[in-house]
């Protein structure tokens, strides 16, 4: 089947292997090593890794549309945030009557706004299955509506990029409004448990970390299968010569739309995994700058490689954590400098560097032969 096809491919195997190994290692180091041992991985770190992994999935989603379809989405944060909000609503409902006002059904911010019933769009948010569905559907539907309009009228290039930016910006402003019923600027926080498991225990954290890893693996394989298929080549074709692809008989806008929707859904899943791990979702995830940052991860890691996106996301976020800790006053210099240096010296990102290495090695092997 086309979906399993990437599993026979070397790069995918390496990727999955490394990911699996890392997950096992972290789990072992967390569970089996005593806390005072230098190799011990604390719950804090596990949590951090879990967050990175959900970012990595997001980056893969962006790479799918940017790298292969040529659509520079400056609004993928919107899909991520929507997935996050759907999950946030579920988590909010799980609080039940343990909120500060003790209302059995309404979240605190609604009690505070004097609402007496849940708005219709909150219906079903107490069911996990429904939530799991909506996590993909909501971003998917938005991506479909937006993409349908945009691709049908052949909005391309920077126009499309800026429109995605406008989309996420508009959503941000809208979610900041208290009347929207999503908690306004404070968003949702103070979550208690998920599926009955207490979110504040180390075990749940570890589980979330592992689930994020699995989600990343699955998402990666799906994307890989997609880009390896003929459809993937059509994507590249339409990226480079859209009109020509049409003259071959491909309905480019449908290709774009479907891949865009898949990518948005993946972003939604990433958001849903992210929220329980960081414990808050608020409109700042819709901020255009965040969406730009995602693109930067991908560019830094290496565009149109998928694994590059993962590397980029992990690296930049780790760098951010590291720098804000050790040099709080100057970390922006370091991060900004990193971006500049990588673009100037590593045009194809880190993945490009790896490829070059590999090729150089192959060359060396060839020469004596």
């Amino acid at each position: 089947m086309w979906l399993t096809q990437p599993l026979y491919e070397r790069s995918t195997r390496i990727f999955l292997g490394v990911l699996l190994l890392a997950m096992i290692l972290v789990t072992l180091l967390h569970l089996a090593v005593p806390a005072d041992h230098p190799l011990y991985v604390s719950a804090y770190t596990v949590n951090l890794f879990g967050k990175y992994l959900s970012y990595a999935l997001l980056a893969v989603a962006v790479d799918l549309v940017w790298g292969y379809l040529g659509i520079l989405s400056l609004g993928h944060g919107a899909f991520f945030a929507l997935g996050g909000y759907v999950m946030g609503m579920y988590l909010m409902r799980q609080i039940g009557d343990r909120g500060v006002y003790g209302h059995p059904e309404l979240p605190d911010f609604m009690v505070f706004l004097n609402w007496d019933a849940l708005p219709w769009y909150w219906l079903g948010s107490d069911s996990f299955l429904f939530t799991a569905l909506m996590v993909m559907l909501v971003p998917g539907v938005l991506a479909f509506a937006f993409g349908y309009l945009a691709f049908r009228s052949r909005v391309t290039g920077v126009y499309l990029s800026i429109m995605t930016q406008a989309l996420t910006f508009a959503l941000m402003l809208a979610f900041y409004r208290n009347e929207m019923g999503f908690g306004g600027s404070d968003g949702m926080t103070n979550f208690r448990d998920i599926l009955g498991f207490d979110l504040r225990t180390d075990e749940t954290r570890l589980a979330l970390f592992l689930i994020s890893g699995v989600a990343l693996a699955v998402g990666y394989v799906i994307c890989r299968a997609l880009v390896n298929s003929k459809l993937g080549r059509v994507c590249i074709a339409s990226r480079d010569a859209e009109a020509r692809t049409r003259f071959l008989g491909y309905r480019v806008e449908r290709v774009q739309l479907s891949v865009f929707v898949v990518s948005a859904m993946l972003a939604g899943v990433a958001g849903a995994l992210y929220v329980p791990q960081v414990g808050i979702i608020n409109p700042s995830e819709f901020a255009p700058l965040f969406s730009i940052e995602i693109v930067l991860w991908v560019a830094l890691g290496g565009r149109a490689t998928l694994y590059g996106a993962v590397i980029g996301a992990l690296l930049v976020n780790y760098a951010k954590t590291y720098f804000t800790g050790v040099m709080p006053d100057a970390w922006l210099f370091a991060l900004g400098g990193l971006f500049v240096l990588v673009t100037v010296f590593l045009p194809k990102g880190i993945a490009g560097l790896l490829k070059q290495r590999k090729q150089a090695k192959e060359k060396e092997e060839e020469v004596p032969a």
Partner: protein
Amino acid sequence: MKLLKEMANRDRVFEFLVPQQSPVDVRHGPILYLEDVSVSFDGFQAINKLNLTIDDGELRCIIGPNGAGKTTMMDIITGKTRPDAGSVWFGSRHNLLEKSEPEIASLGIGRKFQKPTVFEALTVFQNLELARATNKSLLPTLLEQMNGDIRAQIEEVLELIGLKELHRQEAGILSHGQKQWLEIGMLLMQRPRLLLVDEPVAGMTEQEMERTAELLTGLAGKQSVVVVEHDMGFVRSIARQVTVLHQGSVLAEGSMDEVSNNPKVIEVYLGEEA
């Protein structure tokens, strides 16, 4: 060399040259029918009441001065440009003005562009693969698997266009002439009912021109071919029926000899010496 000999053997019928079953209805006349087509750009009348019919299986050469509207005419047929007035029919069933580019392409109209356009980031092989006539809607495209049949088809064309050695190269690095060939190859893979070929031999050597001429004449009969070219030698070698366009409408039509002796054509196009 071997291939060339084979090519020379005109009896041979290439598998991929067999036209695809197509819903185009040509029982009642021509395969392509343009009537009173006009288009203007910012007030400039590029096509002016153009009438043109192409019969099924015909090979038609279209010549005419630079800017006469030849490429624009092809743009109209393939749906890239919408005319201001007139009608364009494909067979007697399909009104091309109502269709989008992909629809027109899947009806069986293939086109080679004046400036060669290939997918530069894909390999030569993949370029041909994408062009191959097959169901091009979403799911089949996603699920299609490479198999021996397809590969054989592609390799055949690869050999024909002389790019076998380069088939794993990205198309972006090809030279101008190689891109021309690749585009012809893509056209062949498409197996269209009607081929629109815009200046196929620009940048080719004499011998390559001959090869192209053979290829095109070989196609005619089963498929309809419309060729635009400025190289008179080439046109002469393939032409049966020639149409001369001038300032957006037909100036003359007839056999090559008739046309090349037409004083008006000589004046605006051929010049004394040709």
